[in-house]
């Protein structure tokens, strides 16, 4: 009893009654998105369970062969198993998208929170800086970073993060601004809560659900951008298996071996679709929630 005396019952950042915890109430799109993402997760684990050929294992005698029992998705121009490369690309492509998203959030979240809460000149300066960066077309800015660092997957991740963070910072700022003007937030400050506590316990819990939706939708566009950069040859470099790079390698052989293009193309499409469906599903679920019962 006495120990509990010093503890302040805090907000639940983890949903208590959110329908996310109840798959039976999921909208079909959201369920499909989750199943697709889970499927990609299982695919990434497949090499541990099954004896698959290495993604860069070449068999020059079996170049550009179509789907068969030995190579269910055929082989590429170097005789590499397309299925093995597709699976090998799951952690690379999705990992790159998640890493880029993490970098974007690492900048945009504190940037947006500080600008939204500080207001006045601090807000104006921070937002003008973001506006200046946003004035450049996103891909051009990403290309500039890659040009400076040299073509690589890491450079494309940083390039995309550099181009994408300002728009996300704007979104975070708008969410924080709206959240911090609620009566209960100002009341908490007057009632003695410190500034940090107000942010952590009253502002961020309001922002997080919307942020989760944004993250999911933005991850889809980041994945598409990274795949585009790899397709242009300035992202992941051969022989790294990556969906965009696989599409680039397949380009000259489209007529001869369409499976080389279709398989990674489908993977990118399904992954983008999965993130979009999950994002839209979360938005739908959160919009229907009872007030603050997440």
């Amino acid at each position, binding site marked *: 009893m006495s120990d509990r*005396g*010093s503890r302040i019952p805090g907000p639940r950042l983890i949903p208590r009654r959110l329908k996310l915890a109840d798959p039976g109430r999921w909208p079909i799109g959201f369920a499909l998105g989750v199943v697709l993402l889970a499927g990609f997760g299982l695919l990434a684990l497949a090499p541990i369970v099954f004896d698959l050929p290495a993604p860069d294992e070449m068999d020059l005698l079996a170049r550009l062969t179509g789907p068969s029992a030995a190579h269910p998705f055929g082989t590429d121009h170097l005789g590499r198993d397309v299925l093995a490369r597709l699976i090998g690309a799951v952690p690379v492509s999705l990992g790159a998208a998640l890493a880029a998203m993490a970098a974007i959030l690492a900048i945009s979240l504190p940037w947006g929170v500080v600008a939204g809460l500080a207001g006045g000149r601090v807000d104006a300066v921070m937002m003008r800086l973001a506006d200046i960066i946003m004035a450049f077309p996103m891909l051009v800015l990403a290309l500039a970073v890659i040009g400076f660092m040299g073509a690589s997957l890491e450079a494309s991740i940083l390039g995309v993060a550099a181009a994408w963070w300002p728009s996300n910072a704007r979104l975070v700022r708008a969410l924080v601004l709206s959240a911090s003007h609620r*009566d209960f937030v100002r*009341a908490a*400050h007057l*009632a003695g809560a410190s500034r940090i506590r107000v942010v952590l316990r009253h502002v961020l819990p309001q922002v997080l659900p919307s942020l989760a939706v944004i993250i999911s939708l933005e991850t889809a566009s980041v994945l598409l951008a990274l795949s585009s950069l790899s397709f242009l040859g300035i992202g992941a470099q051969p022989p790294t298996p990556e969906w965009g790079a696989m599409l680039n390698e397949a380009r000259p052989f489209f007529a001869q071996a369409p499976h080389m293009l279709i398989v990674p193309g489908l993977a990118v499409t399904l992954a983008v679709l999965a993130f979009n469906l999950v994002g839209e599903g979360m938005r739908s679920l959160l919009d229907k929630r009872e007030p603050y019962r997440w």
Partner: protein
Amino acid sequence: MLTARGLSKRFHGRDVLRGIDLTIAPGEVVGLIGHSGAGKSTLARCLVGLERAEAGEITLAGEKVVPGKGNTRQRIQYLWQDPTQSLSPFLTATGAIMETLAGFDIGPRAGRLARAASLLETLGLPRALHDRRPHSLSGGQCQRVALARALAAAPQVLILDEPLSSLDLATQVSTIGLLREVHADTGLAMLIVSHDLAPLRQLADRILVLDASRVVEDLAMVDLACKAKHPLARAYAATL
């Protein structure tokens, strides 16, 4: 106790407060009445620091203060018009009180939970409701939690902005009784903003009438009916 001199405030080029002078003595309950848009809530919000007055000064116990800053935040507490919206949906009733006790470092840490429970019970919130969040409490119950939170800070002045306007009639009656009890027990100085004279008649020692951004009448409540000179004050007196 709390004194304001020459408070002025403009919104969008329009004067909302013009040279307001106000004094609240220790233990005194002052009613602030006026039509909608007269500047009552703005004045209350300036006194607590939710709005910044463009001119004038505020002193508390003879010391010039900036409302909402430093220990003035604790010394002047505020009860919001809509208690449901002023309580965090992320905190239980107990959590709201605990936040104030911890924020102002009031009392020993180990005793805060018991203190919060005792305060809530004193204000008539049954123990079974202490772990509930605002959305599962009624307006009157939220008002009690909000009042308990304000009292937990052990303030010198309590400013109440239309404390009855969002409550039904029965709850208004019980809240008036509650405020009278609180005042009798604590001797707290209060400023009660209202557009309705009836509750102020039961609670206030003195009444300020605000019209067109100015204080047009400042009288003891008992003198309102016989000594009011301004037409608006006389109109209010006629409703008694």
